[in-house]
């Protein structure tokens, strides 16, 4: 039986979420809500989405038992949900396929997106090429420098990448700029937000598109292990890969859910992105949620070795799951994430994304404290190809 049924019809998860935007966007969001509601209940749309996920993205992604690493850690069994094997190398594509199909139904010919690490930008440029739409990606100039290969990938796919020079020149500023574009071009433009943030209906809609991760995992666990995992672990930037795994399990209260944020150089240093662990509720980017902010309510610059977690907000549903105690949130440092990154390379022959390495790092702490019969299911949200330069630099190697 389904008990959990948030958000309400105004997009509220308890006190969080909602529609905190300028008047000009209200009509566009209402239009989006209507179209999405129709597609959500339309078997033809859902069948089309499933077909695309199967033939274009390559789903289902396997649940893989990391045996050697589990043995080395000496406790619980580590299982990996392999989102790294998706087309374009991360979970982000599940959402961009869904939103691009919706944009097409709405008759929009131009899509825009914000990106930090470039993964969501690449996934957006990819689907825009696939469906023949114009694509403009906003990216902080600082991030463009850090993620030059992804900028080139987007250009190869036919997208225009616009550098954002305002504020801290990172993901949050790219989101501001994409919103400004949307306000100006609402008639022909669809805004593909890359995570479970933004105004209603984005947090709900992106969750629904990413929920395929948890739905598959549930079936795969039943088939291969004849039972469900004891604990789910996923990294949390905006929170889309985490909610995608968690959501289908919310009513299964026997399953613990743990979200792992970026502690950067340490929680005490101010150089981190651990929003739920250290932040306070506020309003940013269209919704009420936990934020990293100063005493004046100004949003503070964050730091993480992984650009995809370097965000001062978090999806409103996570704020609610934290407050009501259904999910737990912890943080691991750059250093701990790097060490888990290397461990997975060496023990399993899998190069994980630095974002996903945060989830792995927490699993590595937790597993040895649990019995060998316990099952930990980790969302391996992406592959690490994009992170070669960053990791090499940490070892003093220039590529």
């Amino acid at each position, binding site marked *: 039986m389904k008990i959990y049924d948030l958000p309400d019809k105004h997009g509220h998860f308890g006190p969080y979420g909602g529609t905190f935007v300028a*008047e000009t966007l209200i009509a566009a969001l209402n239009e989006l809500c209507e179209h999405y509601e129709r597609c959500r209940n339309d078997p033809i749309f859902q069948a089309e989405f499933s077909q695309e996920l199967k033939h274009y993205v390559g789903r289902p992604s396997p649940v893989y038992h990391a045996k050697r690493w589990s043995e080395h850690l000496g406790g619980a069994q580590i299982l990996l949900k392999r989102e790294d094997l998706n087309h374009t190398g991360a979970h982000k594509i599940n959402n961009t396929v869904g939103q691009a199909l919706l944009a097409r139904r709405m008759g929009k010919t131009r899509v825009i997106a914000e990106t930090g690490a470039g993964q969501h930008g690449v996934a957006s440029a990819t689907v825009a090429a696939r469906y023949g739409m114009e694509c403009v990606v906003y990216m902080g100039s600082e991030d463009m420098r850090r993620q030059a290969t992804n900028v080139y990938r987007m250009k190869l796919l036919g997208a225009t990448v616009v550098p954002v020079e305002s504020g801290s020149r990172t993901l949050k500023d790219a989101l501001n700029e994409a919103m400004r574009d949307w306000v100006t071009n609402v008639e022909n433009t669809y805004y593909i937000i890359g995570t479970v943030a933004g105004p209603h209906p984005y947090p709900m809609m992106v969750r629904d598109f990413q929920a395929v991760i948890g739905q598959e995992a549930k079936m795969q666990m039943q088939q291969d292990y004849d039972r469900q995992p004891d604990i789910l672990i996923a990294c949390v930037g905006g929170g889309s890969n985490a909610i995608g795994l968690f959501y289908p399990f919310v009513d299964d209260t026997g399953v613990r859910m743990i979200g792992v944020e970026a502690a950067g150089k340490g929680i005490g240093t101010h150089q981190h992105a651990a929003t739920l662990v250290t932040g306070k509720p506020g309003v940013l980017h269209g919704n009420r949620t936990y934020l990293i902010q100063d005493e*004046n309510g100004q949003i503070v610059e964050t730091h993480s070795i992984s650009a995809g977690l370097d965000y001062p907000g978090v999806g409103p549903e996570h704020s609610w799951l934290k407050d009501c105690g259904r999910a737990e949130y912890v943080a691991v440092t750059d250093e701990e994430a790097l060490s888990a990154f290397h461990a997975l390379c060496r023990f399993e022959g899998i190069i994980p994304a630095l974002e996903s390495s945060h989830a792995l790092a927490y699993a590595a702490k937790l597993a040895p404290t649990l019995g060998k019969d316990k099952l930990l299911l980790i969302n391996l949200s992406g592959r690490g190809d994009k992170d070669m330069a960053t990791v090499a630099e940490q070892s003093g190697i220039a590529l």
Partner: protein
Amino acid sequence: MNRITSTFAALAQQKRKALIPFITAGDPDPAVTVALMHQLVQSGVDIIELGVPFSDPMADGPTIQRSSERALKHHVGLRDVIVMVAKFRQKNQAVPVVLMGYANPIEAMGYAAFAEAASEAGVDGVLVVDYPPEECAEWVQQLKKWDIDPIFLLSPTTPETRLKQVAQLASGYVYYVSLKGVTGASHLDLDSVRDKLVQLRSYINLPIGVGFGIRDESTAHAIAQLADAVVVGSRIVEEIEQASGDNPLEVVGNLVASMRRAIDSASLNEVVTEK
């Protein structure tokens, strides 16, 4: 009657339209803001919109974004802005002051604490860009408790069905954003503004200000023929930016005075010959 209502009542009696300038508090320097407010009054404005700097001004174009960044270099926060209004009130008890900004600084301070402090300092209205009517019942209640007017934005895309909702919550005046886009854009379609105002007036029984895209005397004059108030923002902030460090009082004063003449003149020819 509070200051905003009595200001519009007096203007209506004189058959004049209001001039409402926007500046960002703390731009270019917190020390200049109160003097700049007095200068605006001297140059003939009726109400002052004072921007509260925010790290993520989503609805603003580059000009006002940069003004926010200049103010934030001096760490100007909401509490500092309230103090500036209190200082302004030491010498001026007549001209209404409306704070304009984003939700999070207010969330951080708390509705009740903010409303009390703002009222004590002499703030008359507050416009929060990202508090649309559907999210602000409690907020409006707090403001009204202290006789502060909640000012709402309406846009070309606002559907007719929402106008009733806004009419129920709004007081003071409403602010019609004349175009789709962010502050600082320059295309303004007078015909569509005229049509929309007719629609707005059938639901809303408050003075209507029009802003976004008013950059010169001729648009100010044209809008004054249609609306109850003319709001000028980016154009003034540009002058402050270009004064770059030099005292902006004189240039801003001159610009505002010429807008004032344009609004008050019976015809635009008159404005042009005066120049």
